[in-house]
């Protein structure tokens, strides 16, 4: 059962993560906060799905130590960017309540999250054999 779930996690992670992040960057829109929130939620889910799929593959001996170490390295980079983006959005929400907020920091952080997620996805997808059936 676990092995069949891993590709599903990766599929929804890739589609959900990419699509959501691209829609969250217009600070002039009243939808900026909801879109940014949903973008980060999707990105976090995407990362979680990729890492769980990688861990399952590792458990089944389908990853070398070098591959696993590289995925951990990219994962750490993503997690760092993600936490910075969450903090930036939280700061934006807190400041917007006093009508003195600057969305540029949050937008830049979202872009960084997208970049780190793309790096992780580009490396992990072929290794985890997303389209293959095992």
């Amino acid at each position, binding site marked *: 059962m676990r092995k069949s*779930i891993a590709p599903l996690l990766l599929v929804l992670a890739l*589609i959900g993560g990419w699509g959501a992040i*691209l829609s969250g960057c217009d600070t002039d829109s009243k939808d900026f906060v909801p879109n940014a929130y*949903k973008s980060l939620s999707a990105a976090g889910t995407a990362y*979680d799905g990729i890492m769980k799929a990688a861990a399952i593959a590792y458990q089944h001996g389908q990853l070398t130590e070098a591959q696993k170490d590289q995925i951990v390295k990219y994962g*750490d980079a993503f997690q760092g960017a993600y936490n910075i983006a969450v903090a930036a959005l939280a700061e934006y929400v807190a400041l917007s309540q006093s009508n003195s907020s600057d969305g540029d920091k949050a937008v830049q952080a979202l872009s960084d999250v997208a970049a780190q997620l793309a790096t992780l996805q580009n490396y992990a997808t072929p290794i985890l054999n997303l389209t293959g059936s095992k």
Partner: protein
Amino acid sequence: MDAATIAIISEILELALKVGVPAVQKAIAAMGKTEITLADVQALHGLVSAAESYFATAKTTTAAS
């Protein structure tokens, strides 16, 4: 994000929900939100864990078996 992409994501998320994936359940709940509070944003930290921790769990399971 266009309507077709949203539809695809929705179908996949519904399937994953049936399978019972906690993280996806949280993502589905997040997609339905229109009013975002500071607490909602801060809760995003809980969606991700340290990269090594995913493999540590796998290693523990392997060692135990």
